[in-house]
C-alpha cells in the first residue's frame, strides 16, 4: 500500500525527530512521526465519536486506482475547541489532508490539518517540523 503514496501528492513537511505530544487515549506507536504526508481525497464517511473521530476518504493514485484511507483526530470535545463539528464533513466532500501515517504501510493516518470548502482546520498534534502540539 505504501506504493500508493507515490501517486498522491506527497509532501515531506519536516524531519523532526521529537515525538509529537499525545492528546488523547491512544499513543503514537503506529505512526511514523518524522514526516507528514499531504493528500487530496473525497470523503466517504465521518465518524464523530470517542475515543477518536475517524475520517474515511478515497484517494486516486496515478493509475486510477482508489486507495481507501482512514485517519483519526482527537475526541469530539477537543475537536470542538478547534472549530470542528459533527456536520462539517459529508460523503462527497473534496478535502486536502496533511497527516502522519502508519509505519506498516496501511492507509491509516492521524490528521494534523484539513482543508474543506476553502477552510483550514487544525487537527490532532502538529505537522512535524512546524512547532509545538496544540492543546
Amino acid at each position, binding site marked *: 500500500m505504501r506504493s500508493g503514496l507515490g501517486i498522491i501528492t506527497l509532501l515531506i513537511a519536516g524531519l523532526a525527530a521529537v515525538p509529537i505530544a499525545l492528546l488523547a*487515549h*491512544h499513543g503514537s506507536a*503506529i*505512526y511514523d512521526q518524522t514526516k507528514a504526508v499531504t493528500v487530496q481525497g473525497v470523503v466517504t464517511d465521518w465518524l464523530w465519536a470517542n475515543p477518536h473521530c*475517524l475520517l474515511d476518504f478515497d484517494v486516486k493514485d496515478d493509475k486510477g486506482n482508489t486507495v481507501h484511507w*482512514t485517519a*483519526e483526530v482527537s475526541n469530539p470535545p477537543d475537536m470542538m475547541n478547534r472549530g470542528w463539528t459533527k456536520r462539517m464533513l459529508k460523503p462527497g466532500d473534496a478535502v486536502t489532508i496533511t497527516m502522519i501515517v502508519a509505519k506498516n504501510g*496501511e492507509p491509516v493516518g492521524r490528521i494534523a490539518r484539513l482543508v474543506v470548502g476553502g477552510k483550514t482546520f487544525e487537527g490532532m498534534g502538529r505537522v512535524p517540523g512546524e512547532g509545538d502540539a496544540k492543546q
Partner: protein
Amino acid sequence: MNLRPGRISFAPVFAISIVALMAALVLPAVARGQTAGPPKKDAGKKAGPAPRRDLSGIWAPAKTLDGIQPSGAGAMPADGKPEHELPYTPYGLELLKTHKSSNGPNEVAPAEENDPAHICDPQGFPREDLFEVRATQILQTHLQTILLYTYNKVWRTIWTDGRELPKDPDPRWFGYSTGKWRDDYTFAVETNGTDERTWLDNAGRPHSEQLRVEEVFHRVDRDTLELSMTIDDPKVYTRPWTALDKLRFQLKPPNFELAEMMCSPSELAEYNRRHAARGSATKK
C-alpha cells in the same frame, strides 16, 4: 388618578407587582455577587480574594494538556528521565510489567495494549485526576463535597461529616474519600479502598489495595485552584511520591456547560476495527 370608592385601578398594582417580581429575581443574584452571564474580569486586574472554605464552582485546568497527562501523572510523567523513575518495590515492578500501555516510553501498538480504560472499564480513582481531568464542577453541602467530572460523566463524593475512612473496605472503582479543611483555603482529602484492577495513570503505573491517596486542594484566589496529590502504596512503592504538584485550575463562568465525553463500547469497537487494528497490523 381619580379613584372612585369601590373600584380598583389595576394599573398601579400591576406595576408594583412587576417591580417586586424583578427585585425578587435580581436581588438574590446581586447578593451573591453573581450575574446571569460569565463573571466579568477586568483586564490586567488581579482576581479577587478566595472565599472562605469554598471550592464550589466549575474548574478547568489552566492548560488543557496539563490535565490530560498523556504520558502519566503530571508531576511524574513516564518520559524516561531518571528523575521521573518511580520507587517500585520488586512486587510493584513485576506488576508494572503486566501493564501494556499505548503511552509512555514502553508504549505498544493499540492492538497489543491491555489498558482497562480502553475497553470502557471505569478508569477509577486516582486516575480520574491523573488522566483526562478536564472541566470539573465542585458542589458543597455541609456533609459532602462532590466532584462532577467531564470524563465519562462520573462523580465522587468526599465526606466532610467527620467520619473516618473505613478500616477494611470492600474495594471499589473510586474508593472511599473523606475531607477536612486545614485552613480557610486548603482542603485535604484522603482516599482508600480503591480497586487494584485500575491503573494509576495513562502510563500504566500500578497500585494495590493498600493504596492511600492524599489530595490537597488549595484555593489561591477567587479564580484559581491548585491540586496536589501524593501516592502512598507500600506494597508497590518503597516511599510516597508526588503525582500532582499544584496542578492549576481556573474558575469558569457559572453558566459554563461541561462537555459530554463518554466511553462507548460500540464506538470503541468501531475505532479499533476501522483504525487501530489496521495501523497495528504486521508490516507488509
